[in-house]
């Protein structure tokens, strides 16, 4: 069983879709773990335990970032949105307005342009 979280019958899904689901599920789990660790850090009165939990929490952030990058490389629409919003300083809603003014529907309409071919190793 690839995951308990599939919403459609597994036999109806291709391998890429199931891998995408695995990554999304993993990303959710990592971010949930960040939240749980963060609450425990705030709740404990033992500063040594808080330090360990904070260390663990921050490692989960790294895991989340790695999984998000895996998803970005395979999803041109997600890639376009991340390029629009991440590492900016203007108010987020202003960025959305600028993006929509730049094109009919912003980056999602034109895509990233990549054909997302990537590795073909193992095919004939």
């Amino acid at each position, binding site marked *: 069983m690839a995951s308990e979280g599939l919403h459609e019958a597994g036999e109806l899904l291709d391998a890429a879709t199931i891998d995408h689901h695995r990554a999304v599920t993993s990303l959710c789990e990592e971010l949930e773990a960040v939240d749980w660790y963060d609450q425990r850090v705030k709740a404990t009165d033992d500063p040594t335990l808080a330090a360990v939990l904070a260390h663990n929490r921050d490692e989960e952030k790294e895991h989340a970032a790695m999984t998000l990058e895996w998803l970005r490389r395979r999803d041109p629409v997600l890639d376009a949105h991340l390029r629009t919003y991440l590492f900016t300083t203007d108010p987020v809603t202003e960025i959305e307005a600028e993006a929509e003014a730049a094109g009919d529907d912003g980056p999602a309409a034109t895509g990233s*342009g990549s054909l997302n071919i990537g590795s073909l190793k193992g095919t*004939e």
Partner: protein
Amino acid sequence: MDHLQRAHAPISEAGWSAIEDEIRPRLTTYLAARKLVDFEGPSGWSHSATALGRVETVAGPGPALEARRRRVLPLVELRAAFSVDRRQLEDVDRGAPDPDLGGLEEAGRRLALGENSAIFHGYGAGGIAGITESTSHPPMTLPADAGHYPTSVAGAVDVLRQAGIGGPYGLAIAPDLFTDIVERTEHGGYLLFDHLRQILGGPLVWAPGLSGGIVLSLRGGDFVIDCGQDISVGYLDHDADTVRLYLEESFSFRVLEPDAAVTLTAPGKPKK
């Protein structure tokens, strides 16, 4: 702003999809080298060079100062331009399933063959050393009669094994020689194609842009494409009749283990 400038093109979402859906399967047919070597990335358009982990000594900037400069392999940008008739794109918006997208296919073929050729045979101007010019083994000549290819391919596989290079192995083969193989039946009706696959333990790859053939290990870690931007469709300009677009990618290629490939040179024309 996106350097591909797609937001400025007079092309609807359906038009972009038609272009991408048309060229993607053709590229996956043509891109033979990617079927045999490792692919790292894409790391984005801003990725400019592959780190080699090497330095070269240079003169220091002052007395009693040692200096070393890091060596890198710059990525090459390949671009193939083409034009599309705007009427055809308008027909796509009307629901036409079979638009004539002009030079798109030929541009894809040019780009893919350029990538294949750079990886298989090298691209001096781009600083890429190809597999055939990097291999440490002397080349083997394919016989004029395709029926004898198994002997050559088995010999090449043996050379790799003797060098301690594990399999599975693959064969990249020029299109004319590939056709000779698939047409051929050996004694007993056994397909030559299947016989070669059994010897290799891996695929036979139709490889436009390659002269002759290459037997190489597919174990991984021996040949690496470092991709900056994977093949993408960008916009140049347009007038009332046509839109000019381009296919573009950036990549470098390294042979990390020269022992892991054997070149098979093309046979002379068989005498009839």
